[in-house]
């Protein structure tokens, strides 16, 4: 590649080219470039919500698809998510100000007895990358933590993670407690973690098992859309 081609001035690109360039930059995890791109689009009069959905979420969707297909792996996704975070930091206050529509909200945490968080963090990042608001409860959460967060945060989705075969069954404790309290059907419950599988997700009464962070995002979108449709129809 020639030097001339190497130097791209973001502000000289038209909107469409700039968005394509931002897709590339997200894919490569270039945080400063993403921040610059977001600022340029805002200066050009783009609504914050449009910047989020068309530039950032659009770019992260490509990253997510390649992660799902085993083309990108955790290191690349972490870098992309970090770049996305840079852009989100600029957009977040503006989104709140402009009353932009919400994609959805998720409360997520690793279950009691389990101190693993890499997978859960990845899901948080990818969900944020898809425009969701995420409340992360961290590791080792007893059922009370989940219930309290459901009440105060009013999320659409509850996500639970476990990396140990011995802690997986605790997910059922949480779901059973939600059933007892009559609040199970108020939320979409997604579960994930290395030793889990679809059969297990069904057995404990979750809405879905998500094999990886990319699948979690797809599943979340699907369920939230379904929920909205139901509400519109009802």
């Amino acid at each position, binding site marked *: *590649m020639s*030097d001339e*081609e*190497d*130097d*791209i001035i973001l502000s000289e690109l038209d909107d469409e080219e700039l968005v*394509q*360039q931002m*897709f*590339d*930059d997200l*894919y490569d995890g*270039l945080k400063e*470039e993403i921040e610059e791109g977001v600022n340029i689009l805002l200066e050009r009069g783009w609504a914050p919500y449009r910047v989020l959905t068309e530039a950032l979420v659009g770019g992260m969707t*490509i990253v997510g*698809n*390649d992660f799902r*297909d*085993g*083309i*990108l*792996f*955790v*290191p*690349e996704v*972490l*870098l992309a998510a970090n770049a996305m975070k840079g852009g989100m930091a600029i957009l977040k206050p503006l989104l709140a100000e402009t009353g932009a529509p919400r994609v959805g909200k998720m409360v997520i945490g690793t279950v*009691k*007895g*389990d*101190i*693993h*968080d*890499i997978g859960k963090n990845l899901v948080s990042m990818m969900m944020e990358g898809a425009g969701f608001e995420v409340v992360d409860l961290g*590791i*080792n959460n007893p059922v009370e933590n989940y219930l309290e967060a459901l009440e105060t945060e009013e999320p659409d989705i509850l996500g639970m993670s476990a990396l*140990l*075969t*011995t*802690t*997986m*069954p*605790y997910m*059922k404790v949480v779901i059973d407690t939600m059933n007892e309290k009559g609040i199970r059907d108020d939320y979409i419950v997604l579960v994930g973690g*290395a*030793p889990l*599988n679809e*059969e*297990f997700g069904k*057995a*404990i009464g979750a809405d879905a098992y998500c094999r*990886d962070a990319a699948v979690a995002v797809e599943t979340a979108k699907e369920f939230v859309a379904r929920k909205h449709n139901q509400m519109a129809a009802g």
Partner: protein
Amino acid sequence: MAHILHTLLDTQGWVLADGATGTNLFNMGLEAGDAPELWNETKPDAIRALYKGAVDAGSDLFLTNSFGGNRARLKLHDAGDRARELSRISAELGREIADAADRPVIVAGSVGPTGEIMQPMGELTHEAAVEMFHEQAEGLKEGGADLLWVETISAAEEFRAAAEAFALADMPWCGTMSFDTAGRTMMGLTAPHMVKMVNKLPNPPMAFGANCGVGASDLLRTVLGFASAGPTLPLIAKGNAGIPKYHNGHIHYDGTPELMADYAVLARDCGASIIGGCCGTTPDHLQKMRAALETTPKGSAPTLDAIAAALGGFSSEDDGTSGKTPTRTRRRRRAA
């Protein structure tokens, strides 16, 4: 003097390692969330029983109860400053059981991942990782481990940090990674990548390979991947006893002792010479594995179809080496 691991490999041709630590301790009553390493101190008899279970079943080598015994992991149980001490005790108990056996048995000091992501993706620096691994290595050495054994690693950086720490502790070592994501490690490493990475280490291990991951079939596909890259060191295969299934509130691994016996023989045919189990592998499994290895002559490397027919299908269509490339073809690259 030749190291006991080399002696055993020379005389027997293969070495039977042990089975699970975590899942076996849970069967003994360890509660989810408790640090298994604390049992070295509070329930030493349970740890002795764990080790003895493997030795009595025929294991030539067992891992100490120190998988999560590094500062970063123990910190989550408010015991970060006890890494060296708890690791030492795990090896002392191991030494006791190995020395009481009527044949040579190897005590391998288990070193698990830090659970942190290393720079530049994460926060953990190379220096901090080396320091953590070194601290644990010294404890295991003090306790009398014959060698160190780093396992379930996903990132090449972390594997290299452990290798460096083991050089500082002046200990021989073995190392395995977990290939659980479409045939690769979580961090994207393929089996041939690992061979290349190991070949470049300034202090190479005595043996290397794979542990845990998805099921026994996937693990053997990984071993075939090692073998195809022309490794010069002995290969380790430590696969899970099948896949975890949920029954009435409990999880159990669906791999029977008979299946693991088939797995052990196939692992040797694939090119592994240090063979054991991981999650779900009990002394019953180990006994059958030993018997099968002793009574079956080594055969030629099986095909993937033969592995799937014997042990079940694979979790992904290939082992991550088929050369899939990013779908995003760059339009142009900016100056770095």
